[in-house]
């Protein structure tokens, strides 16, 4: 799998542990429906400590951190901002207590894409809202299996896939991302463009639907 190549006209990179990816799902799926063709959804497992520092919380209090004050302001804002959009979409979004390893849940995206692409939205619906209500241990492969089952997706072979081919595919993809100009989620890749953030959806839709009228500026849908 090549990071910038796909048979689909649009590649969408997401990570289960990203609040911004969570709130981007609804408008991106809505755009997919309007355009009438399937996007190629892929995992990007964020290495958060490498760019945002790390912290550990217990009972809502930070007990360990190497983040600057400005970085903390940015992170707190990001959660607050994602939360208000999530609430408008009818979801709860609670800040995480630790930085999760989301690779298993993200390998699940590769599994669904391979076995039952039409149920990808159902898989996301089974994972994201629960995770962001702190009700899902996405580091537990059996929990991820249960999400697949809840979404109506076959799970036979999934655990082996996570340890073998799925892990290899996932890791090979991650190593191609920075060299391709991809660093965060959601990222949208199409033709010659790499765009980070759902605020680009108006422009992407304009491009993918034939560039009719003036190009739109960035905007978050309400």
């Amino acid at each position: 799998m090549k990071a910038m190549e796909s048979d689909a006209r649009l590649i969408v990179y997401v990570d289960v542990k990203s609040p911004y990816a969570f709130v981007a799902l609804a408008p991106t799926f809505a755009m997919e429906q309007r355009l009438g063709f399937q996007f190629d959804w892929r995992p990007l497992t964020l290495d958060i400590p490498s760019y945002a520092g790390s912290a550990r919380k217990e009972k809502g209090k930070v007990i360990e951190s190497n983040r600057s004050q400005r970085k903390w302001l940015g992170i707190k804002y990001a959660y607050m901002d994602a939360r208000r959009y999530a609430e408008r979409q009818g979801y709860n979004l609670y800040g995480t207590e630790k930085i999760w390893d989301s690779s298993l849940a993200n390998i699940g995206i590769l599994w669904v894409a391979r076995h039952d692409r039409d149920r990808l939205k159902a898989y996301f619906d089974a994972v994201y809202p629960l995770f962001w209500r702190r009700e899902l241990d996405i580091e537990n492969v059996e929990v991820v299996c249960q999400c697949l089952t809840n979404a109506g997706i076959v799970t036979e072979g999934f655990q082996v896939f996570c340890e073998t081919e799925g892990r290899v595919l996932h890791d090979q993809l991650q190593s191609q991302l920075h060299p391709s100009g991809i660093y965060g989620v959601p990222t949208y890749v199409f033709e010659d463009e790499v765009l980070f953030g759902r605020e680009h959806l108006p422009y992407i839709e304009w491009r993918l639907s034939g560039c009719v009228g003036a190009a739109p500026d960035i905007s978050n849908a309400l």
Partner: protein
Amino acid sequence: MKFLTVFIDFKSAAAYLAMDATLKLIQAGDVQVIWKPYEVRAQAIADKKQIETVTESHLRVRATQRQQTHLKYAAIQGKTIIFQKEPKGSGAALTALAQFDGDPVEYIRAAFLAYWQDGLDLDDPETVKAILNQCGVDSNSISFDQKGKDLLVAQQIEAEEQGVFDTPMYVVGSERFLGREQLPWIEALLENSL
């Protein structure tokens, strides 16, 4: 009447590209706007090294992509935007904004153009005085010495106490919004239509 506070820095490409849409929003409604300075950090994009840590790679790729995105939307808006290899400062221009008496929009527009179109150093008081004079503002009324700098620092601290960390940051009541992509929500808040 509603109140909107907008924090800007002239060396923020995002703040520059937000100006037209922000002014359009303001003109459309009964909104009183307070423009405030907030100095962001602008660093040169590091050259790609043969061996990079994940952090170095992430920061370089992110900065490069952001710059390309700004260039794309500047073209869409029909604006010139020139990124300098080493970003110039904006301290003196922000010091002036911190002391501005009256509507600063013409000055803000001129300072943004001076930075992004003409590549001027807005940390140079003489450059900023020329911009002020061009906008019909008596530059002698602005202090660029320690007193003026202290005022900017005080406003910077006050902004961070409100949770400001980047620009353009919009504050409506107790709500903060970063970036012009948030204008639909801000507009709805100002119209009480959420």
